[in-house]
């Protein structure tokens, strides 16, 4: 909990500073609304030709040749099987007769755009993947791995039912929610691993450029396509799998899937992409 208390202390100190010295730079007091506006402006200015809602297609919105390859793949996308498996799992009741639909508002259909949300009772960010495993545990079932196919199929189906709906992440007015948001932003911009990259190094400074054969996706809308079927993995990848593999690729030891910092990171990244349509499950190189 050291980072959380450190952040809380920093926030309090900043708040105090702000009172004492009103001219404190606006950026220091966390203002998610301004962040989101600045974030989206940055990308629309950097890529004037890309429509706002196209950013959710990641690398395919950055390169014409790739876009064509993608369109062809989308005719019969490789995530078709995961989608089908997810649909079956969603309707198959647990041993106690309940199903996932009982754990989620609106039966879990068309709600993906509200995840992750800040759970004020627990005082933490709850992502779709965490909620699914909590639902399983609440119904006496063993939780599934966050990086394997079952979780990917479930989130693929739930994302599919929300396709096209704008991302709609809310930050309740609760200091802990602001703190989680700030913690996610800090993680996003912090350099790590022996290659000394932060998420921003690739996804803010050089989207559209190549890293070996792959075109880097813009950070804007990067969560909207989750979970993704990656040809590289020739299989489905959940958000947890994407975060942990990204860490190890830059030679940083990954945290555990659904670690608090990863959830905060997803909270931040989803919030600043508010308004962009859900396009999951996605197919990626």
């Amino acid at each position, binding site marked *: 909990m050291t980072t959380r208390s450190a952040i809380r202390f920093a926030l309090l100190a900043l708040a105090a500073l702000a009172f004492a010295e009103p001219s404190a730079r606006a*950026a220091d007091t966390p203002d998610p609304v301004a*962040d989101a506006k*600045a974030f989206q402006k940055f990308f629309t200015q950097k890529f004037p030709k890309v429509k706002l809602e196209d950013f959710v297609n990641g690398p395919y919105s950055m390169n014409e040749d790739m876009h064509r390859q993608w369109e062809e793949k989308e005719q019969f996308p490789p995530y078709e099987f995961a989608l089908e498996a997810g649909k079956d799992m969603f309707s198959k009741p647990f041993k106690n007769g309940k199903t996932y639909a009982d754990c989620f508002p609106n039966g879990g259909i068309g709600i993906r755009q509200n995840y992750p949300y800040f759970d004020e009772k627990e005082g933490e960010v709850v992502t779709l993947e965490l909620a699914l495993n909590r639902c399983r545990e609440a119904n006496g079932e063993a939780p599934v791995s966050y990086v394997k196919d079952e979780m990917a199929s479930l989130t693929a189906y739930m994302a599919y039912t929300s396709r096209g709906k704008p991302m709609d992440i809310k930050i309740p007015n609760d200091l802990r929610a602001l703190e989680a948001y700030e913690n996610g932003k*800090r993680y996003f*911009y912090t350099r790590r691993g*022996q290659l*000394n990259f*932060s998420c921003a190094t690739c996804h803010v400074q050089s989207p559209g450029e190549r890293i070996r054969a792959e075109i880097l996706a813009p950070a804007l809308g990067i969560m909207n396509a989750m979970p993704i079927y990656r040809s590289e993995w020739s299989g489905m990848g959940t958000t947890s799998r994407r975060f942990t593999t990204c860490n190890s690729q830059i030679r*940083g*030891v990954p945290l555990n899937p659904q670690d608090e910092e990863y959830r905060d990171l997803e909270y931040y990244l989803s919030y600043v992409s508010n308004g962009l349509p859900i396009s999951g499950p996605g197919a990626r190189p």
Partner: protein
Amino acid sequence: MRALLLISVFLITGSAPTLAASEGDFKAAYAAAEIAEKDAGQLRNQWTTTEAALAAAKKAAASGDFDQAVASSKEAEALAKASIFQATSEKERWKDMEIR
């Protein structure tokens, strides 16, 4: 005859001036590296290459090659310290990259 042998052994290993590292040297170097890696763990900023170096050290020690084991331990310690420096220096520097 024995002296001749001893000298030739030194010449062959080419490590005439320094004595071959002993298990004790390895244990000390490895412990230092482990402490540094734990500190990096506290800051939740370990590197995979540090872990690889620690493993290499242990493997070399197991096969009795303490020179290599000490070298790998030292490398691991250096990597761990670098990751600590990275974490501490990034505490504030991340704001420079932030989109405002």
